């Protein structure tokens, strides 16, 4: 299996005023195959969002390389995105900021359709139906929708472009607790249905457990463990993973405090 996405020794750092450079992602190597769902988990500040942004070309690399389907991912900067890289799409964390408030839902989804190599793959009503929204949503504006609905629209827009890799950067963290699992499940099923891979980034281990095939555990800029979700859950190798998993409260009714 040739990898769809290949990361080699990726390092990303930030300048922080008055301090040494902050290394957010440190020597990360990772590969992701086609039609695979990889969950990337870790605590806040571990560098997982920076890694997601780097994969989309939104961060410059200090060293290392990111290759997507044979094309090197370069920093987007002020250029128009390479057509090949349009096959990577992202769903952002904050559904209230990820849609243009002044354009109708239909037009924003059409933005996605426009770059889909297979022009007849989707229609707007089709996509809306797939994310469980009414067709009338098309002519409405974002402010008329709830957070969960907006996130579905953002997913529809990303899927509209026919991506081979869908990156979700904490896509459910801002959603109402009871909606989180459903939206995550929707991302998985849509990605797989369209033949795309999904990189799902979350600090919510229980959701990743349910939707991912593979899981990568990130801590302090490094990936400490990677493997099949069930294997990692049932037999974690690294102390950090063990610690993380044992901190999840168990639903056993015994009243045992975790950690």
């Amino acid at each position, binding site marked *: 299996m040739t990898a769809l996405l290949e990361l080699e020794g990726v390092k990303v750092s930030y300048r922080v005023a008055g301090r040494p450079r902050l290394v957010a992602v440190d020597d990360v190597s990772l590969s992701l195959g086609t039609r695979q769902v990889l969950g990337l988990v870790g*605590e*806040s500040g571990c560098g997982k969002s920076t890694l997601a942004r780097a994969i989309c070309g939104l961060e410059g690399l200090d060293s290392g390389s990111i290759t997507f389907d044979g094309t090197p991912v370069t920093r987007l900067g002020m250029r128009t995105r390479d057509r090949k890289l349009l096959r990577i799409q992202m769903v952002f964390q904050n559904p209230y900021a990820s849609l243009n408030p002044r354009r109708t839902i239909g037009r924003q989804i059409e933005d996605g359709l426009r770059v889909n190599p297979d022009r007849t793959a989707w229609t707007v009503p089709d996509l809306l139906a797939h994310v469980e929204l009414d067709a009338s949503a098309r002519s409405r504006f974002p402010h008329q929708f709830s957070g969960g609905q907006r996130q579905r629209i953002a997913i529809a827009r990303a899927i509209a472009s026919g991506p081979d890799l869908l990156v979700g950067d904490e896509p459910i963290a801002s959603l*109402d*607790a*009871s*909606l989180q699992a459903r939206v995550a499940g929707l991302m998985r099923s849509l990605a797989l249905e369209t033949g795309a891979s999904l990189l799902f980034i979350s*600090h919510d*281990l*229980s959701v990743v*457990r*349910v939707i991912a095939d593979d899981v990568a555990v990130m801590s302090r800029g490094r990936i400490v463990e990677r493997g099949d979700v*069930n*294997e990692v*859950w*049932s*037999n*974690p190798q690294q102390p950090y993973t*063990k*610690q*993380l*998993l*044992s*901190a*999840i*409260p*168990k*639903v*056993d*009714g*015994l*009243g*045992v*405090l*975790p*950690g």
Partner: protein
Amino acid sequence: MSQPSASGGLGIRDLTLSIGRGEKAKRILRGISLDVPAGRITGLAGESGSGKTMTGMTVLGLQPEQATVGGVIEFDGRNLLELPTKKLNTLRGNDIAMVFQDPTSSLHPMLSIGSQLTDHLRQHTGMSKREALERARVVLEQVKVPDPAGALKKYPHQFSGGQLQRVAIASAIMCSPSVLIADEPTTALDVTVQAGILRLLRELCDDLGLAILLVTHDLGVMSALADTIAVMREGEIVEHGDRFQVITAPRDPYTRALIDALPRDGSTGAEQATTGDAS
């Protein structure tokens, strides 16, 4: 100011709340009865829209202005729903305190932790600044904020999410309340940080004899922390009982569905390595 902890609990009887009038009225709470006894953690579970947050808000007198409320919320022999606003305001913060999901929402970004913790206390007790700051330091120590004396001089943005939630809890217990309403207190936190906050809430409940009403959708948190669990659905309590019974042998089909919806091994844990579960 504070009530003797023996009578410190809260009794909710047939609480109803609706928004709007007549035919179109939306009934958010349809007769909630629940005891929140002192020294115990009472869990209120349910999906969003079930009315669990609204129940907590109504106890605090923070329900929407246009809402019509019925029933009784008994605290220290008085019905909170009949108290004049002024009395309720004194009660809130002094005897009944609250902790929310987002600690930044209850802390002023431009004021030092020291002045935020002491303001309310000094206003209500006439304590001197020195005494109040000393009390604040003790409380910060109690909630295990590292370097309590130094923390008094810091500002909210200088703390991590978990530490800030501890500060918010400190702020809630400054006036020695007898009831604490905790609405999704750990939902925004990483699991390892969450574990610490859960531990802290349990300690406060045991040590101070607090009556805690824990509102959360997370059954894991419920199972770890609550003594009794009430499950809400569409404004009604469908099940209420001992933690172990509700989690392991739910009587209500909705509760059972909620629990069955969890990953098969009932969440997770490293010790599964030993049981060899490879589901």
